[in-house]
């Protein structure tokens, strides 16, 4: 436990974090996340964060040490894509029972590790600590160490029980596990001056592959992606890269900074969302590689590729711009995306009516101001009810957010697009940007919205009927009790709203000749009356000229 506390304190001191830099020592000690509010919190725990960060390593067995909740309720729920191995999608858990709680779960954990190696023989096993075994004192570091030695296979403890903090802390604790146990433990078969690491890129919906072809074309090799479509051997030998890109997320800034510190791998924070950002990132990669000794032509080649891809993308987006004119988007997401996606949307011609900055740094906010102007609507914390109201009142034409808030938009019958991890489309790089624009267009102009926003037509019908019934009731009260009354009281409609006498009177006294006229004089309105009124009209004596005149009105 004490080593975990130390690690957490170290993370809170992260010098690479711009947010931290502005804090007092006392503030810094409290950590970089707000205290969670009971009954008002949302979002995952530290364990969740660690798993998100590491599970995209595709050839590793991910073993969760804890009761069934931690893995049983959550496995196979991420959209990362793999180009080969599939064991990362297999759910492994010790599924601790009551006995384990009483006597400790270390033995079960060791046996579980052994079973996995016997049955599946992966190149490594990541073992995730969770709250309950942490509480009862299971020492997963010790178990993993023993298992590694006895079973001759890397078994990596990931010490990130849920209750130590939120998801983003878990991301960093996952990074610490890599730094301590994995990175630098193996050597690559060969190296090139074009080797880079991508840090914090999870290859959701395969989006990495929207960019990788361009890197391939430039001869740039992804030595290791941490962790999208990654392999254990790659991350273990990632310390030989020449440069690194921290992709669109501060989630693993500790990894990037410490690798720079330890191995001299310079990094930059960049994004592949949007055309400009993609170009900037490619340029930075080329620049860093050239600085570390890659031939300087790389920069020119990169510019050629950028020029070609930008031209293509702009051409593809062009037709949409007039369609998007005046369309307003609301962006509810976190961190870097709060500005990188803003830029992307603006490139497509959309107006941004607001972007959430809940998890954004001061630096992030500066960039938003640059993009959206000084009076940018930066949303600190908006409740679902507020978002719903905003959309219901049509203050925005589309919302882009993560999956959990989608129903706020949909129930307000407003277009919504998933830009977080559960989406099924990939939006990275130039092709991804074009795809995003296509999807926004599809969402905005779906003819469905118009139908869903129409009022229910029966409500109108019902209102009319209420009025009619009220008047009928008043008339009915006047009816006395002789045979003619009975005859006359006979209901004409199935809906029982109009009686024969009322209609006969109306016809007689006003000399009516048409159904329409009868309706006006009796408030009979319905469909079923029509035929029957015609019958009555037919039986009544011919009307006076005055009546004819009236009917012609």
């Amino acid at each position: 436990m004490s080593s975990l506390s130390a690690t957490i304190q170290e993370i809170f001191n992260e010098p690479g974090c711009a947010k931290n830099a502005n804090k007092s020592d006392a503030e810094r000690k409290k950590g970089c996340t707000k205290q969670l509010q009971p009954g008002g919190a949302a979002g995952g725990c530290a364990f969740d964060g660690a798993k998100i960060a590491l599970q995209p390593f595709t050839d590793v067995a991910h073993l969760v040490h804890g009761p069934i909740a931690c893995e049983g309720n959550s496995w196979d729920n991420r959209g990362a894509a793999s180009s080969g191995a599939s064991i990362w999608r297999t759910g492994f858990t010790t599924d601790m029972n009551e006995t384990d709680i009483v006597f400790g779960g270390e033995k079960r954990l060791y046996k579980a590790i052994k079973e996995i190696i016997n049955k599946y023989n992966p190149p490594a096993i990541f073992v995730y600590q969770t709250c309950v075994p942490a509480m009862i004192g299971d020492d997963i570091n010790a178990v993993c160490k023993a298992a590694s030695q006895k079973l001759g296979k890397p078994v990596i403890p990931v010490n990130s029980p849920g209750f130590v903090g939120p998801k983003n802390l878990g991301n960093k604790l996952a990074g610490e596990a890599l730094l301590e146990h994995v990175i630098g433990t193996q050597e690559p078969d060969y190296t090139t001056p074009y080797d880079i690491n991508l840090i914090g890129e999870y290859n959701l919906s395969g989006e990495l592959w929207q960019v990788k072809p361009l890197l391939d074309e430039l001869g740039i090799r992804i030595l290791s992606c941490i962790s999208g479509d990654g392999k254990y051997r790659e991350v273990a030998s990632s310390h030989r890269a020449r440069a690194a890109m921290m992709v669109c997320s501060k989630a693993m800034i500790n990894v990037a900074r410490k690798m720079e510190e330890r191995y001299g791998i310079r990094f930059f924070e960049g994004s592949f969302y949007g055309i400009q950002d993609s170009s900037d990132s490619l340029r930075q990669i080329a620049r860093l590689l050239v600085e570390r000794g890659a031939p300087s032509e790389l920069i020119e080649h990169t510019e050629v590729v950028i020029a070609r891809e930008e031209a293509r993308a702009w051409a593809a987006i062009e037709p949409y711009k007039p369609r998007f004119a005046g369309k307003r988007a609301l962006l509810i997401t976190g961190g870097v995306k709060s500005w990188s996606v803003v830029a992307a949307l603006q490139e497509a011609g959309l107006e941004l009516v607001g972007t959430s900055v809940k998890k954004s740094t001061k630096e992030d906010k500066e960039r938003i101001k640059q993009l959206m102007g000084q009076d940018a609507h930066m949303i600190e914390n908006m409740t679902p009810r507020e978002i719903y109201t905003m959309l219901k009142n049509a203050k925005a034409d589309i919302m882009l957010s993560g999956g959990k808030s989608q129903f706020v938009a949909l129930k307000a019958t407003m277009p919504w697009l998933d830009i977080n991890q559960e989406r099924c489309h990939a939006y990275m790089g130039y092709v991804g940007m074009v795809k995003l624009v296509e999807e926004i267009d599809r969402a905005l102009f779906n003819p469905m919205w118009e139908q869903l926003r129409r009022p229910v037509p029966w409500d109108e019908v019902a209102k009319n009927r209420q009025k009619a019934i009220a008047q009928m009731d008043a008339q009915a009260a006047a009816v006395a009790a002789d045979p003619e009354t009975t005859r006359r009281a006979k209901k004409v409609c199935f809906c029982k709203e109009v009686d024969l006498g009322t209609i006969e009177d109306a016809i007689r006294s006003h000399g009516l000749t048409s159904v329409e006229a009868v309706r006006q004089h009796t408030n009979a309105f319905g469909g079923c009356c029509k035929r029957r009124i015609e019958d009555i009209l037919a039986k009544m004596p011919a009307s006076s000229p005055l009546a004819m005149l009236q009917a012609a009105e």
Partner: protein
Amino acid sequence: MAIVTTPKKACAVNPLKMSQPIGGAFAFMGLRGAMPLLHGSQGCTSFGLTLFVRHFKEAVPLQTTAMSEVATVLGGYENVEQAIFNIYNRAKPEIIGICSTGVTETNGDDVDGYIKLIREQHPQLAKFPLVFVSTPDFKDAFQDGWEKTVACMVDVLVEAPVGAERDPARVNVLPGCHLTPGDLYELRTILEDFGLKPSFLPDLAGSLDGHIPDEFTPTTIGGIGVDEVAGMGRSSWTIAIGAQMRRAAEAMQAKTGVPFRLFERLCGLIPNDEFIAFLSDISGRPVPAKYRRQRGQLADAMLDAHFHVGGRKLAIGAEPDLLFDLSSMLHEMGAQVTAAVTTTQSPVLERIGTNEVLIGDLEDLEELAWTRNCDLLITHSHGRQAAARLKIPFYRAGFPMFDRIGAGHQLSVGYRGTRDVIFNIANLVIADREENHQPTPDSWRTSRQPLKPSRRSFIASTEESIA
């Protein structure tokens, strides 16, 4: 919006169309105790029979006048007479419905004349219900046969009301042939929930919903009775479903004065809003809470499904009313109706939300789906070969559906039916994406989609792959 075209081909390949006599016979199957009879060679009946049996998985009554070559030359009077007699004596039907075929139409058999003669010669048949419809194979299609036959039933079987009062709760329903027994059940439930008493003409729900009768009967095992049909003139309203039913509805109005309302579609949110509002109007009853709830569920289903259905490029082949109904609903969900093929003319065709509707065959549909990169195929079971070659998801709709069970219970009307269709189609698309469109490192290697050549030799090129 759409232009209706007919391709200039001498050879129809993989027909979408079926013949109108069996469409006519199909309508007769919705009458109780009926025996449909095709006036033609026995193959005409045999093929139709097999088609119905494979679709419904039910014993289906359908007889033939068994015209031989010689009889064809001499004229079919004797065959018609014998057939009616044999059926009348053996099957003890309540009605016999006769449709002509290509053979007997080419020959010019005057079946109406025959019937008159038969009635004269055989007093026991003088009042026996016999309905004849002229349905040559070489004209029109299945839907037309149904359309003409129902109109004929109205002309022959419905009595002009004399004196009797109209029953305000009673409503006639004239359903198009694109509605399944399951659809008719759903409509009956909805109407009854408004306190209305519907008479369906024809009522396939009573005969072909797949139930188990207590006794064996060679005729239809349910459906609307001839007596009930006779009294349809005392209803307050006629509800016609599908443009094909205008003719019958007009016939009903002309004969009995019962006004009608035509609903061209009953799959989709707005069409059902109109339908429910109409029922509330004519019944004078508020809409039951159930339907408000179902409406909400449909709206929610549309929201969930539009991510998957929106933008899909749809190739659809169906008879006009079904084509109009399904393609409009999907168009309204954001799908693009990219290829549309149908069997016969109809006023609804030009209102389909696409550029062009072809009166053609499944070869045309396949070719269009291929060249225009469609990603969803909707047609009847005969589309299965095309779907396999195109490697796109295939939603079975229409008649026949012989390679799956439960065809008679497929539901597409009402809020609930629309919801089911939407879920089913969206789930097909989702399954297809998972199975066939997962991204790979090469998915975006080149961002340009290859243009597909016309598919002149598509069958040859897939010879090996499809055993």
